[in-house]
């Protein structure tokens, strides 16, 4: 498979986890594209306008500067989430979703109109830390493994359990002494940091960055990653992000009908798998398969 497509798939998976994290506390936010755009714009600006980072005339870019950008992009997005989260996380359900859509629009219009972000054309000629697209596989995979590891750790940590408690019943969680605002805010900031870092990666990978990258349309696609993959485990949005990013490309041999088929997949996914492809039940069955006691013949093989 084309390494560039693999990188795009990994970026999809990272954005899927970013939408999943607030959902793990029961909060439907669509703010991920805003933080993705903040990270991407920061990387585009720093690497093209700030000579200290060492972009060379041949279009190459030192790796340490790229890693510094990753950290800065994540930090800036996280800071923005901290400021905005305090206000918008007072809202719930559809109202929260609408408030976060507004955030996406504000960031988009700001990037479009700021004097230094290149207007509608955007910023182009972003220097490359790697000689080919395959180079991006390593940082993208590392970022995904790190995010996955954090999500996996959360399952056994107090914070993760508190997140699950808030998702199941916020009032009951508060009665048990959980600072629900803090829990929700933490998940929101983690989601933003991840989206910001992904934006930095994407800006270099795409060679160019403009206001269209973080739009409401992309929010809908990222939400589809989670809905198709399943929102009860971090593996769900990863699978959703990988599959839904790859599918339009893998369907190219079909020709003009490929987007029709893609639409059918998005439609039939929730119809056939209402809880997504990856459900807690499926993970439990897989876990039992991996366990020697769960081999065929033992209790795991019951129909």
């Amino acid at each position, binding site marked *: 498979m084309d390494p560039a497509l693999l990188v795009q798939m990994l970026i999809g998976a990272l954005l899927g986890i970013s939408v999943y994290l607030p959902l793990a506390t029961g909060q439907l936010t669509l703010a991920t594209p805003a933080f993705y755009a903040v990270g991407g714009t920061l990387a585009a600006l720093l690497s093209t306008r700030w000579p200290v980072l060492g972009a060379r005339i041949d279009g190459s870019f030192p790796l340490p500067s790229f890693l510094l950008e990753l950290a800065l992009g994540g930090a800036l997005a996280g800071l923005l989430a901290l400021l905005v989260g305090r206000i918008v996380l007072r809202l719930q359900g559809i109202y929260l979703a609408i408030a976060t859509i507004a955030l996406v629009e504000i960031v988009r219009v700001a990037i479009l109109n700021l004097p230094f972000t290149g207007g509608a054309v955007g910023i182009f000629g972003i220097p490359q830390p790697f000689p080919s697209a395959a180079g991006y596989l390593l940082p993208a995979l590392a970022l995904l493994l790190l995010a996955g590891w954090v999500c996996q750790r959360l399952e056994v940590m107090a914070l993760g359990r508190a997140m699950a408690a808030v998702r199941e019943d916020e009032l009951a969680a508060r009665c048990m002494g959980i600072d629900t605002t803090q829990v929700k805010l933490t998940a929101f900031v983690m989601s933003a940091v991840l989206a910001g870092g992904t934006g930095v990666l994407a800006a270099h990978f795409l060679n160019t960055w403009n206001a269209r990258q973080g739009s409401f349309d992309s929010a809908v696609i990222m939400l589809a990653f989670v809905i198709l993959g399943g929102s009860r485990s971090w593996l769900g949005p990863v699978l959703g992000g990988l599959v839904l990013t790859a599918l339009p490309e893998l369907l*190219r041999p079909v020709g003009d009908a490929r987007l029709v088929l893609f639409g059918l997949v998005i439609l039939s996914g929730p119809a056939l798998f209402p809880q997504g492809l990856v459900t807690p039940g499926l993970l439990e069955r897989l876990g039992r398969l991996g366990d020697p006691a769960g081999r065929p013949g033992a209790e795991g093989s019951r129909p």
Partner: protein
Amino acid sequence: MGGLAVLGQQADPAAKAVPAADAPNGALTIGGVIALTGNANLYGQDQRLGISLAREWAGSRRRQPGEPPLRPLHFQLQDGGSDEATAIAGFNLLIRQGVLALIGPTLSQQAFAADPIAQRRGVPVVAPSNTAKGIPQIGPFISRVSAQSSVIAPLSISEALRRDPRIRRVAVFYSQDDAFSTSETAIFQRTLRARGLTPVSVQRTQLADNDFQIPITAALQADPQLVVISIQAVGGGNLVRQLRELGYRGAIVVGNGMNTPNIYPICQRWCDGILIAQAYSPELDTPVNRTFRNLLRGSSPDRSPSQITAQAFTAYQVLFEAVQRLQRRGGLENVNLGQARKALMEELLAGQYDTPLGPIRFTPDGELVQGQFYVAQVRMDPGGRSGRFALVRETGVSGGAGGSASPPAR
């Protein structure tokens, strides 16, 4: 990491030998990455048509006596979508399949994403419709046959001011979230300022807008004598119609976004009289443009020739002619694909071409040098359903092959 680098190199067949012209597999492949889906697909459909007409034209070329055989060309089309990621995927796929050169992508924003990939792999790109500043500067393998708006846009303003030198009050409209419209309006406004005219009203709209009552009302309060519009076809057509319906009677100059017959059904009889500068005129009376129009009439009798179609035709034509010249000089013998790509790029930039756009050539860095540009006025049929871009002035630009401004010879 080393394994990944190998993975990247294996994906490029540049080291494979180019087959001989008379071998059974002697055909070389040109790739096209064009927006067939997404919001740029209207342009993509016109481009697909233009390339298919050019292939018909190329297929009918006969070998002259004494000439070596023509090098057959295949064409492989991929959907570039209207976003950056899909264009990148399309470029990567075709480069991996071993194309000799690429045509595309449709939007300038996509070009800034995908062209660096072709540049790094050393694959020649001819852009049929990228008008943003800085496209050929992406690298030596990137060229275009679409003139920058900075060359074309001022011509229509000059024509409007020539018709009515008393114009002092100008209103400007543009969609602020569209890359093409924002760069074009900057040129329009710079041209106006150079003529001593400061816009009395500048109205910003969005790409998706179709109702312009509020900005029009605001602009009409300043009582403009000329309205200059940089908005894409559908929105722009609606704006012109609503301007007239709300009582504006003055001159209208529109930008390249409305340079398509697709506006006729939208603004209907209200389109009549609007001025537009064009890089292509259907009324240009040269053999190759007659051939282009005849081919179009034969394949789609209901479509009028448009600039986007003519530019896509031109993109394929220049590649075809450059390949054949290279073939005649023996530049495709005993070379691998990577060397053939490099030789083709040099041949492409060195050539002169007689195209439906008029005579063209390239600067050494791949920028288009086009001799003639045109100012047209829309003339609608009495029924108001259909019309034409009537050529009112043909302009030679310095550095090009043409002469100075003159009325068209018709």
